[in-house]
């Protein structure tokens, strides 16, 4: 048997995330699928100059109270801490409430680079990297700011942009259950960006509600096969 992938704590699982690493963070919006405990552990660990790849930039715990009663934790804490030098995602900051997020403030101050990517293109760029491909042509973004600096090409009478693969040193993701090998299943819409990010990182770290024995997960229903998963932390909810 090979080495166990089970880590005792989120702190232990993120301990070697290095300065200037690229880090994918799963989830989608404010809830459901965010690897909250791994995010907090990375905030405590303190790695800096990170490139953060996530659907949303988050708002941080303080501002989150203006959105939902009781507030919630998201990737915003990493911007608050000044740990991020570049963000790549589809919603760096919300246009409406809250008035500004830590990401927005840093961006205005010139302390953060932001690459805004249409959400489907973000997902596809990650899958492109995961599949060992060099790029793809998408019709999304043609005639918009997204097209700036990109090769455009007409194929069968339709215009497309060339988009490039996106991979990361680490992926922090959230799943529902893992078996001890690392096979993963998700729960409802908490699936979202987690499975695709799991496949495109050199080291994939997953926070799960529970670990089950090998053989317990239906092989037809495994969403992320274990070879994509390197570290598992159980955080019962």
């Amino acid at each position, binding site marked *: 048997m090979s080495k166990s992938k089970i880590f005792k704590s989120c702190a232990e699982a993120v301990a070697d995330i290095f300065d200037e690493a690229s880090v994918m963070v799963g989830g989608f919006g404010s809830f459901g699928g965010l690897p909250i405990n791994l995010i907090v552990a990375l905030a405590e660990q303190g790695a800096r100059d990170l490139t953060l790849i996530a659907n949303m930039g988050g708002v941080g715990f303080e501002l989150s109270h203006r959105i939902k009663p009781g507030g919630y934790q998201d990737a915003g804490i990493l911007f608050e801490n000044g740990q991020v030098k570049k963000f790549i995602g*589809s919603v760096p900051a919300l*246009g409406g409430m809250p008035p500004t997020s830590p990401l927005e403030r840093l961006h*205005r101050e010139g302390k953060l680079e932001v690459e805004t990517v249409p959400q*489907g293109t973000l*997902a596809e760029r*990650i*899958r492109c990297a995961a599949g060992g491909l060099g790029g793809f042509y998408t019709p*999304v973004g043609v005639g918009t*700011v997204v097209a700036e600096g990109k090769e455009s090409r007409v194929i069968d009478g339709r215009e497309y942009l060339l988009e490039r693969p996106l991979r990361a040193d680490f992926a922090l993701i959230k799943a529902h259950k893992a078996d001890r090998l690392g096979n993963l299943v998700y729960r409802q819409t908490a699936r979202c960006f987690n499975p695709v990010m799991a496949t495109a990182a050199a080291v994939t770290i997953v926070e799960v509600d529970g670990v089950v024995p090998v053989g317990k997960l239906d092989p037809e229903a495994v969403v992320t096969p274990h070879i994509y998963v390197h570290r598992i932390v159980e955080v019962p909810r």
Partner: protein
Amino acid sequence: MKERLDEPTIALRAAREFADGSVVNLGYGMPGLCANLIPEGRTVYFQSENGMLGFGGLAADEEKDYELINASDQPVRPLPGMSFFDSAQSFDMIRGGHIDTVVLGAYQVSEKGDLANWGRPGRPATGMGGGMDLAVGAKRTIVTMLHTTREGGPRIVKECTYPLTARGCVSLIITDIAVIEVTGEGLLLREVAPGWTVPEVQALTEARLTPAADLKEIEL
């Protein structure tokens, strides 16, 4: 001042566009109100870009599950026959032309159907989310929005001045005073809100409107 339709009424009018058996995606904000306004007797399969198909309306407080949410972070109700998938598969569905109708909000729509719905001047770090993918991929894009800006300026314009979402993607615009179809020959004014005249609507619209031969009042 003349009375304008409120947001739930605009959403109600939009929901009447959903064909029986069609696949519908609802954007952030006002479009989301369509979720609980499907016309009696029609089945609509909602798709949400976070990876879900065939869910129900918005959940009541006591049934909220924050791992069962639409792309606007709102808990929804499960339905038999629904399915979950990841973001990459979700956008295959969207770009692949399997969404019959998407309803999106907008800052501006041009007379050619160009859509600007994500970026505002002075907020450089906002993002387009899945709006570009939906506008490009859906078979039909319906925009629901207020006809004018907070300051009373037009939102239906000759050329968008806000950052574009996609060119020529809008099929139908439903506002608080009118229903306007985007055609190859420009904007066709199909319906006006009760009490509104064509010149009154045109006065609040930068782009030129052509009244439809069968122009009527919005039926609600």
